[in-house]
């Protein structure tokens, strides 16, 4: 069976609908924000480095102050001082003579070289005592997959934006081919000021950053108290700080992973609570019409609280309204066919009999019947059109002011000529004379009133009178015209008050003229105006009450 069904554009079941996907993305972004903020929180790192430098400069100041004076040579004092400090400091304190020879070095306690050329004092950065670089302990963290994963964005960022700015030339103080005094911090100290610098030293495990702070040592004594006898150089690796930051980053990355996991779970749950019912509703909506466009089945009424539940219930309501409407239309077309076929059958029967030849009297009667049947079909078609247009068209602007009393008087005049055997009494209630305009189209109002009048006249026994009453009721915005029409006919079966307004319903014997649509049209009109129409038994007879609001201009 090739090409039996046009392939339906597939609504592929997806793991996450777009709502679920959005929720996931938002949740993840929410998790990312603080992490990203912290990752790039370099000010924190800078702050730590500044603190470190201040500590170092204070150490240098202390050392420089302690070494001041002229008791013994500077070298002795320096050696004693550094020896007294002992081991276990992170900072490396070196004392230089003004000429550049190392007088004491906290990294080399016990060996007090008299005057080692600066170039050889610390030939390699590796000479920095490993024991003092506590951060070495943290090193394994840097190698872990977790760290590398977590630091990926940071490393990429640094490579792209910060790599060129080394801040130093990659050598320790004494690796430089230049002279001792060319180092900026040394030069500053020799000039009697505080000097500091940062150097990045390439190492086996990547570069390490070192801070250098230098302060002059005044000669003290009496001769030349401000003379510069030497200088104190404090240097320290930032490895510990950076290591701590790194371990903090790892912790944060762990928290991030956990949060991301939770975010995924929460997103899935949200998707389950939001996306899934919405998709179910969408699938239902897509399948609710069959291929002929007929309504099949209904929307589920989800118990879900909140918007999804509200939506499902709104859809279910809409579905059932549509269903009622469709059912109504289906039955309406059947009713219509039924209503038209009856007079049609009669016309056909009359014509067939005429065809076979009839006496004059019979001919006249059959022609008369055929004519009245055609008239009925004509009425029916007109009324149907009327009703359809009332249902589907937007009401246009009124064709003029609607003054119910004037219009009723006009209709009453015509009534006598159309129904010679019947009387019409016009009764005016409070406010009717000189009352306000009604919020209705005058042409339509006449039509509604005429339908009510004709309905009353068709039931009124000959010689009786139909009562037409007009009055105003209510106050303010609820002020309205009340138009009553009472006949003294047989009334209608109790309990049928509402059915009278149904299309094609009639308690009247089929008389070939009335279509059973007149009252339905009145109701459509009344509802379009925001008014109402109802029937009540008046014993004898029936009373119809049409209420319509007054025009807001009054």
């Amino acid at each position, binding site marked *: 069976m090739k090409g039996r069904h046009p392939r339906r554009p597939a609504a592929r079941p997806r793991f996450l609908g777009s709502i679920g996907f959005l929720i996931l993305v938002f949740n993840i972004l929410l998790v990312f924000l603080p992490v990203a903020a912290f990752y790039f929180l370099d000010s924190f790192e800078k702050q730590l480095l500044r603190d470190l430098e201040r500590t170092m400069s204070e150490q240098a100041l202390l050392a420089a102050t302690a070494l001041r004076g002229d008791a013994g040579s500077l070298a002795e004092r320096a050696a004693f001082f550094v020896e007294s400090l002992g081991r276990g400091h992170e900072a490396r304190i070196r004392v230089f003579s003004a000429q550049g020879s190392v007088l004491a070095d906290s990294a080399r306690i016990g060996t007090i070289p008299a005057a080692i050329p600066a170039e050889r004092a610390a030939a390699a950065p590796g000479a920095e005592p490993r024991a003092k670089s506590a951060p070495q302990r943290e090193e394994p963290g840097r190698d872990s997959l977790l760290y590398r994963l977590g630091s990926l964005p940071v490393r990429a960022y640094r490579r792209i934006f910060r790599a060129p700015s080394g801040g130093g030339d990659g050598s320790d103080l004494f690796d430089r081919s230049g002279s001792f005094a060319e180092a900026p911090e040394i030069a500053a100290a020799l000039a009697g000021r505080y000097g500091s610098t940062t150097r990045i030293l390439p190492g086996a495990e990547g570069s390490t950053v070192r801070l250098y702070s230098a302060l002059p040592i005044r000669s003290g004594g009496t001769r030349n108290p401000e003379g510069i006898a030497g200088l104190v150089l404090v240097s320290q690796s930032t490895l510990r700080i950076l290591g701590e930051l790194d371990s903090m980053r790892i912790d944060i990355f762990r928290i991030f992973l956990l949060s991301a996991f939770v975010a995924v779970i929460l997103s899935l749950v949200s998707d389950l609570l939001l996306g899934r019912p919405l998709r179910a509703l969408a699938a239902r909506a897509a399948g609710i019409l069959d291929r002929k466009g007929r309504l099949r089945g209904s929307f589920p009424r989800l118990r879900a609280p909140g918007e999804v539940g509200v939506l499902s219930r709104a859809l279910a309501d809409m579905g059932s309204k549509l269903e009622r409407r469709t059912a109504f239309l289906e039955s309406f077309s*059947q009713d219509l*066919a*039924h*209503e038209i*076929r*009856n*007079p*049609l*059958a*009669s*016309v*056909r*029967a*009359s014509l*067939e*009999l005429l065809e076979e030849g009839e006496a004059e009297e*019979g001919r006249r*009667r*059959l022609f008369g*019947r055929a004519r*009245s*049947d055609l008239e009925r079909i004509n009425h029916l078609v007109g009324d149907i059109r009327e009703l359809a247009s009332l249902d589907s068209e937007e009401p246009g602007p009124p064709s003029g002011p609607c003054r119910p009393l004037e219009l009723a008087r006009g209709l009453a005049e015509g009534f006598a000529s159309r129904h010679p055997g019947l009387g019409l009494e016009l009764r005016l209630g409070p406010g009717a004379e000189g009352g306000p305009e009604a919020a209705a189209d005058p042409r339509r109002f006449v039509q509604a009133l005429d339908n009510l009048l004709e309905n009353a006249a068709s039931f009124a026994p000959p010689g009786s009178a139909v009562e037409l009453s007009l009055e105003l009721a209510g106050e303010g915005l609820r002020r309205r015209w009340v138009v009553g029409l009472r006949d003294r006919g047989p009334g209608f079966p109790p309990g049928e008050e509402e059915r009278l307004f149904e299309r094609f319903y009639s*308690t009247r*014997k*089929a*008389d*070939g003229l009335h279509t059973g649509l007149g009252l339905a049209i009145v109701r459509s009109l009344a509802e379009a105006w925001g008014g109402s129409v109802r029937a009540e038994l008046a014993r004898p007879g029936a009373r119809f009450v049409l209420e319509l609001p007054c025009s807001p201009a009054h």
Partner: protein
Amino acid sequence: MNSPMEVLLAEDEANLRGTLAWAFRRESWSVRDFEDGLAAWEYLQKAPPSAEGRVLVLDIVMPRMDGLELCRLVREAGLELPLLFLSSRDEEMDRVLGLESGADDYLCKPFSVRELLARIRILHARASGRAPGRPAQVPRPESAEALRAGSLVLDTEGFRAWWKGRELGLTVSELRILACLASAPGAVRTRERLQKAAYPEDNYVNERSVDCHIKRIRRKLSALDPGFEGLETVYGAGYRLCPEALPAGSRP
């Protein structure tokens, strides 16, 4: 001419009622017309059993008591008169002609008066033929009016049909359609032809009504013979009686 006839007409449309009554009287039938089912029922309850054959022609949609209710009451009371429904709703046909409803025939408005008159005559004749003293009988093989196709025997004059010796309660339309098919077993008959056969006086009938009739003929045959599948639909062409599915009757 058959025995004298009384037609009871229950129809709420005054014009149609008048015209039909007129047409019936022209046939010299006695006519009683009622404007709803209740009036007809009241008359039937009071009326003495008539020596004339009675036929009830009734509309479905009527105030006070509709045609279906009247039909039910008539059958419950055991009245044997034939019932012919007039309806303005195509979709009622199935309901009216259900196996259990007891309706004998059905015409959809607007119908041809000639067709209606012909059917009333047929129903009347059939009812007379079934009257006490003339037991229902499968026509003898040699009788001229019998049409045979295997186990299917049709009496085209008396408008009755038998399958394997048991009577099928067919409406006039159904019998005419079956007769058209049985006159040439194996030959395909178009819907148009079957429609003409079913409504010889009427040229304005919904083509789908043939399908409805076929459906009901099948149902009635299956009710007697659950395995029956001898009435075939030939897609795009029409219907045919399948000779192989009609087990050998008494005639080759």
